[in-house]
């Protein structure tokens, strides 16, 4: 038995080394970006990073520390704020929402700003921090799950920004233990096995995709309404436009409108065709379709203002 175990261990050890070499040479694993907590307690990425997202493509973090290409100019700006759907590491940077919008000839520059797992309140905090750029509009790509995730009374989640409605206290997201994570990520083969086999995460960059996890769960509309009321008091919402995904609960959309938010809902008869085959995130095609509808909305807005 001893000999058997020795052989087995040696075989596995050599196998791990071979695996590590193959994964690194063929860029089969996923590179993880570096981040920090900024002065506003928001998790931000270090600027100018690039990394592999498996063998198919690379993710890019621009000079402002945001996923995707930076806008050509900061003039006549619209921000594109969201969670993993907008961070969009599962698609190449060419397929990012801000990139598609900038190609549609709306006359605006689009500034992407997103973090996987961001709640509605985190997006509002981001919007607040981007006010210094004087954006014309701040587009927040949301789903009712982002509102649920924002309230500590519904469920405490230390990995996103939340609001405690009772006390009015903002609880900022805690970055996961950097050192341990970094150590795991450095063993690319182990990480490759972990992602592809152990937890079946596939290409999904957002392990805690609240849109999937919250499917079919009951929504506490009273708390969501309280959140919207409180948000209206705390933040400047005049230039905020909530872009609701097609599968958002209609009651939540209705509440947002009643609380003074500008909004519109994306429409499709075939939402599946927008999504990736094994993932609920939008594919390149989905992002294109979304961008077309958003561009049309922006066009209508500019026409309605004399």
């Amino acid at each position, binding site marked *: *038995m001893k*000999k*058997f175990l020795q*052989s087995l261990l040696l*075989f596995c050890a*050599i*196998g791990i080394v*071979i695996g590590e070499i*193959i994964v690194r040479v063929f860029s089969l694993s996923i590179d993880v970006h570096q981040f920090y907590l900024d002065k506003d307690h928001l998790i931000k990425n270090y600027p100018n990073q690039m990394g592999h997202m498996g063998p198919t493509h690379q993710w890019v973090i621009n000079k402002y520390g945001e996923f995707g290409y930076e806008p050509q100019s900061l003039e006549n700006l619209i921000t594109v704020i969201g969670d993993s759907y907008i961070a969009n590491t599962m698609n190449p940077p060419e397929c990012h929402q801000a990139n598609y919008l900038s190609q549609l000839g709306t006359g605006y520059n689009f500034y992407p700003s997103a973090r996987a797992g961001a709640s509605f309140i985190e997006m509002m905090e981001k919007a607040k921090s981007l006010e210094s750029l004087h954006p014309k509009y701040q587009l927040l790509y949301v789903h009712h799950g982002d509102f649920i995730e924002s309230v500590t009374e519904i469920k405490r989640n230390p990995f996103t920004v939340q609001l405690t409605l009772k006390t009015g206290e903002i609880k900022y997201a805690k970055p996961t233990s950097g050192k341990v994570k970094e150590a795991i990520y450095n063993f690319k083969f182990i990480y490759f096995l972990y992602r592809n*086999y*152990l937890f079946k995460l596939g290409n999904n960059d957002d392990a805690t995709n609240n849109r999937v996890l919250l499917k079919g769960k009951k929504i506490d509309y009273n708390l969501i309404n309280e959140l919207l009321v409180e948000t209206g008091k705390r933040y400047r919402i005049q230039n905020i436009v909530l872009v609701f995904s097609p599968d958002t609960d209609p009651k939540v959309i209705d509440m947002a409108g009643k609380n003074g938010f500008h909004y519109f809902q994306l429409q499709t008869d075939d939402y599946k065709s927008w999504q990736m085959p094994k993932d609920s995130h939008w594919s390149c095609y989905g992002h294109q379709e979304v961008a077309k509808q958003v561009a049309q909305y922006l066009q209508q807005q500019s026409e309605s203002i004399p």
Partner: protein
Amino acid sequence: MLFNSVSFAIFLPIVFFAYWFVAQKSYRHQNVLLLLASYFFYACWDWRFLFLLMFSTVLDYFTGLKMSDSQTIARKKFWFWLSIGVNLGFLGVFKYYNFFAQSFADGLANLGFEIHPWTLNVILPVGISFYTFHGLSYVIDIYYDRIKPERNFVDYSVFVSFFPLLVAGPIERATHLLPQIKRERVFDLDRAKDGLRQILWGLFKKIVIADNCARYANMIFNDTADYATLSGSTLLMGAVFFTFQIYGDFSGYSDIALGTARLFGIDLLKNFAFPYFSRDIAEFWRRWHISLSTWFRDYLYIPLGGSKGGTWIRVRNTFIIFLVSGFWHGANWTFIVWGLLNALYIMPSIVFKTNRNHLDVVAQGHYFPTVKELFSVILTFLLTVLAWIFFRADNIGKAFSYISHLFSSSLFSKPTVFPLDIIYLVIGFVVVEWLGRERHYALEGLPMKCPKVMRWSLYYVLIIAIFYFGGEEQEFIYFQF
């Protein structure tokens, strides 16, 4: 829990270490562990059907004892038929009820009577055909005084439920497996290494060969235009892909089962012996799903008179065996026609008594076959390919449509589906299987001639191929039986 799943990759080492390090003091402890592990393994599919398995186990254990203790022939017969009736009853209800109800309704509809049969909306308990046949062989052997009943319930339960063979065989015999369960097992280094090697080869067959052939076989067989737009050559490709899919799938499963059992010091019955290198259909059936073929031979063919009667008796018995064998695979006319077609194939050798002409391995001791052997192997292979079309088709109509479009002028055109990478892979696989055809499985002993570095390199290449070609976990075809 599939053999090709991450959960099994976690489950197996845990049971292995518990078996040899925690429960190693006595084979009784090891048997209790194996039984718990097997029940957990089965419950991972559907825990509700665990009770069916337990009931079947208790029934056969109890009737086995009762038959042995019976003072009169009548009482012995009573317990025997009780067990046979209940076992076949369960199989009939879960596997065949809907088929008979629907066929009966269709038959009446043809006579002008419209009825709407009540059908069962239940899923087929995984492995029911296999563990029922385990139990039946045990009960029949006791009835005919071939074996004594097993008095230890745990040992008997392990015989029925041992997890490597529980869901898709091999169909074991009490005379072969029970003595192994009832003796001390000592860890054997060579056996354990051989077990791991066989598991690796089984995974390769399943994940690399079967699952990749399945992609193209499914693409062609699932054609929505009823094959009208596909060329004969493309349909031939589809049938050949399915031929390798089912072999890679089922023999791969059997290799993993045998290898896994060997890690626990237990040898299971061999289930495959390179059937696609057979020189006639009789040889094919001695090499394909051996544990089922021999089960039918011992418990059906021989009791029916076997080959002892005249030509007519032999022909009748052969047809019965193949009919039942087809029906065993599933409640669908496609399986029945598949069985009957094989009976027709084998008939000339039964009539002319040439069915035992090829008891050795083709081109034994040589690298290359003779022209005659090559021709025989190719012809047998093509006949098998044709029969698999019935096995794979959704219904009889589709099977005939497939065959009629296959034998068209476009049979000699360039196929529209021609994945070169998979074709090279299959050719490489056939070469390795050919080189190892005189062994229990292709890799057995083959690498022993090479230095360790070469051997290990071969294993790593196989593992890399498994990772590279592996996609979603695919179920094994024989789980549905």
